[in-house]
């Protein structure tokens, strides 16, 4: 029962965000937009965390500046562009689909196609078991088989 309660509590608890209340915008709609964008932006210090999740000073600075820009009336795309202009596509946790990232996005699918093609070719070329015609047993073979089977019954 205790365990169940603990599990339930853990399941219900929302992951804590690093943004402390003093950083948050008063307008809940803008704050939500800022949080959503912040989750897509990589913290340059901890690298696999978003700026929204990170405690690093630089992540805090970026959170503050992102919010300032939203408060000034910029759109999500404008704020995102502001950060990308300074840190490059690397700052986006979800890399954009463009020329330099084609291999990244399409590579796995290309490999899959090649692998499926190779497997297909391999299995088609190998003579299947069903394809070899079944030659009926000769009278001699039948006699031997019957003898063996009878032999098995006795033991």
């Amino acid at each position, binding site marked *: 029962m205790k365990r169940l309660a603990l599990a339930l509590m853990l399941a219900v608890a929302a992951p804590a965000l690093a943004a402390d209340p003093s950083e948050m915008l008063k307008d809940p709609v803008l704050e939500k937009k800022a949080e959503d964008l912040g989750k897509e932006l990589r913290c*340059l*210090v901890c*690298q696999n965390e978003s700026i929204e999740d990170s405690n690093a*000073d*630089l992540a*805090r*600075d*970026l959170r*503050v*500046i992102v919010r300032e820009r939203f408060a000034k009336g910029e759109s999500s795309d404008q704020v995102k562009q502001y950060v*990308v*202009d*300074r*840190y*490059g596509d*690397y700052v986006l946790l979800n890399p954009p689909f463009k020329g330099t990232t084609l291999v990244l996005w399409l590579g796995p699918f290309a490999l899959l196609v090649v692998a499926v093609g190779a497997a297909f070719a391999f299995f088609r070329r190998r003579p299947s078991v069903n394809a070899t015609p079944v030659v009926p047993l000769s009278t001699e073979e039948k006699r031997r088989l019957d003898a063996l089977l009878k032999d098995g019954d006795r033991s």
Partner: protein
Amino acid sequence: MRRLLYLLPVAVFGILALFFLRGLTLNPREIPSVLINRPVPVMNLAPLPGRGDTGLTTADLKGRVSLVNIYGSWCIACVQEHPYLVKIKQTGIVPIHGIDWRDDPVEGAKWLKKHGDPYDRVGVDPAPGRTAIDFGVTGAPETFIVDKDSIIRYKHIGPVTPEAWEQTLLPIIKELNK
């Protein structure tokens, strides 16, 4: 032909191995800067108290190849590179400007008194470090080479070591000074 086909997996493995080997030797901290070959960001930074200069503005970088060094009194790696910056200043090859990043200016000034002051001009960039973010700074220390036309030409991440100076930064500065 069939034989060649059997070599295909080996070839694929080889290519992947090359990629991974390259990946292993890369430093994930060294994020290529998108600001290379772009003008220095517009800045107008206040001076450090008691230092006697007027701070650091974009206009101050015009006309000479210079270094812009990001430091802070809280930055431990800066202590490591600092004596070498003082040495570079003594050679007179290139002026170094400092940006005291995310710091209390009083502490920043004290720190320079303690560790030596290699800078021509120093500007203060308090949190949230707008100018540093305009420079695409990811941590301190970082050093930028700015050319005569105020275009950023190179970004060095981490302490300027004698090796980095002699093998990378100095040749670029010499080239730009031609």
